[in-house]
């Protein structure tokens, strides 16, 4: 019998809360001592956060594994638990368990490749971890393009970090867009899929996509037009989860459990599953 029951959480403490957008906050979590990470993770892996009595849910870990001091979670306010998290204060203890899932294959198939990140809205959260991991291991990867769109300029997540770090990295191109024109915004106004097509990327890279399902669907069409194969494209899925270890049955799609076989899937593999996600 194993000594560590993966379904029993440990304690963490929230040491920083940052408001990113009107409905997204980023929470910094440390071990109960206020320092260090509760556990190590890979880019794209997730953790179960909970406030006992309120709820427990799976969130992607937004910070990179290369960040040794803490873990961060960018969370959109959209339900019972997330409402509670949004009104809590620094110093609040939470329960945390993980890491869960496979993560992006940063040390295997993505290594040495040119990378194209495409994100919409809070969909940047899981990719944020990968982007920073890549930037912290810059020599291991080729050109990096980041296309990121949100409803408005106010809804762009991590804008400060994007402008202050990502835009200044060598061989990294950031392409921001918002859905509708807005006063004070002199950047691009377009939906992400159309913007991707307009930018006209060469299919000489691997693509990592995350965003609302409808955006992912149209981005895939745009990429196909540009000559990309499904085997080059990776995404990460979101389904209801409880146990996190492929037993409770909630995130089962076909013969896969998103919590353990995913949440990252290559598109051709995803297409083999029943269309129920």
């Amino acid at each position: 019998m194993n000594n560590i029951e993966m379904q029993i959480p440990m304690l963490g403490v929230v040491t920083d809360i940052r408001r990113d957008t009107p409905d997204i906050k980023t929470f910094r979590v440390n071990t109960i001592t206020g320092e260090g990470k509760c556990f190590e993770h890979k880019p794209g892996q997730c953790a179960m956060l909970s406030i006992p009595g309120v709820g427990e849910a799976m969130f992607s870990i937004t910070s990179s594994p290369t960040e040794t001091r803490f873990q961060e979670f960018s969370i959109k306010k959209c339900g019972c638990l997330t409402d509670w998290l949004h009104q809590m204060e620094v110093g609040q203890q939470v329960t945390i368990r993980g890491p869960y899932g496979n993560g992006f294959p940063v040390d295997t198939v993505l290594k040495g490749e040119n990378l194209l990140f495409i994100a919409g809205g809070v969909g940047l959260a899981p990719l944020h971890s990968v982007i920073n991991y890549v930037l912290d291991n810059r020599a291991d990867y080729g050109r990096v393009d980041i296309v990121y769109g949100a409803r408005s300029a106010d809804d762009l997540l991590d804008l400060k970090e994007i402008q202050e770090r990502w835009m200044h990295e060598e061989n990294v191109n950031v392409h921001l867009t918002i859905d509708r024109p807005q006063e004070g915004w002199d950047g691009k106004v377009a939906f992400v899929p159309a913007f991707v097509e307009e930018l006209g990327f060469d299919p000489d890279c691997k693509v990592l996509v995350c965003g609302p399902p409808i955006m992912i669907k149209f981005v895939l069409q745009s990429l196909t037009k540009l000559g990309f194969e499904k085997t080059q494209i990776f995404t990460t899925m979101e389904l209801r989860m409880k146990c996190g270890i492929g037993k409770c049955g909630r995130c089962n799609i076909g013969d896969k459990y998103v919590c353990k076989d995913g949440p990252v899937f290559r598109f051709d593999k995803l297409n083999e599953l029943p269309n129920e996600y």
Partner: protein
Amino acid sequence: MLKLSLNRVGDLFAKIAEAQALYLPVEKAGQVDYDKWTADAKVSMDHLNTAKSAKDLFFPQVERMVDFKMEGKNIEIKPHALSDEKFVLFGVRACDMKSMEVLDKVFLAEPVDSFYAARRMNGTVVTMACSEPEESCFCNVFGVDAAEPAGDVVTWKVDGELYWKALTEKGEALTEQIKALMEDGDEAKVEESKAAVREIMGKLPLANLNLAPFQPEKLNEMFNSPKWAKLSEACLGCGTCTFVCPTCQCYDIRDYDTGHGIQRFRCWDSCMYSDFTMMAHGTNRPDQMQRFRQRFMHKLIYFPSNNDGMYSCVGCGRCVSKCPISMNIAKVIKALGEDKDE
């Protein structure tokens, strides 16, 4: 092989219960379920299927996992102790025994579910061969032999005697405890009874269900079958099939505020329920048809695909006798297995 007169099973139960807890089919308020043996328990030696299956003993309907104490911004975590009750589970039928093989694949796969593993380790299972299978039985379809169940000990009821044979080390240890009550039994008698039961099994109405079409490579074809709409049309989404099913293992994890703290527990859940996959932004299975399809696809295609062809049904027939609209897996197997698009 050992034997004991059925008139003396009370002595056997008392002897077993001296050393550990004993659970067996007990009749209460007209329903037979596994319950703890007491001297005045109304033990049912003849009833075929308990209402709740034997999975309840290893994967209880409700299991406390961890307690929390909340104080201001602080939380205290108190993991609930794993069950350490040594027990014997007596009277398990071949189908329910097979269901434990299915559940083992889920709960003992890495990372091991320690709640289940503890109960499995502490339990010794004494099975009982069937002597009068019912019309709803179809365990033979899934390779189960009602006349020769697996288990730590297997027993047969023949001509007023209980025949007893240990199959595992745990079974041998239990046999040592009760040996003094037993005498040597004649294997030939048991063989006769087995042959008779197998003959009945072969003649039952569901004995010839064809599983051949249910292969993992047919996943998308089966999933996209137009037949699901008709099959699921009358489904109430009540979840009865799931709760009586010995292999259904989906569960929910929830918190209960006692007023003095929070108890986190898990409990049986059903993929047939509308909120099973509901998230703040919606659900990926909004229709009852999709939820109905999920349950059967899981049992007949997804589970075998992950477990070397083992189906997640053991043919116990509980859903056949309990579904309020008389829909069941046997009908699904028949309808989907046929070539006709009816």
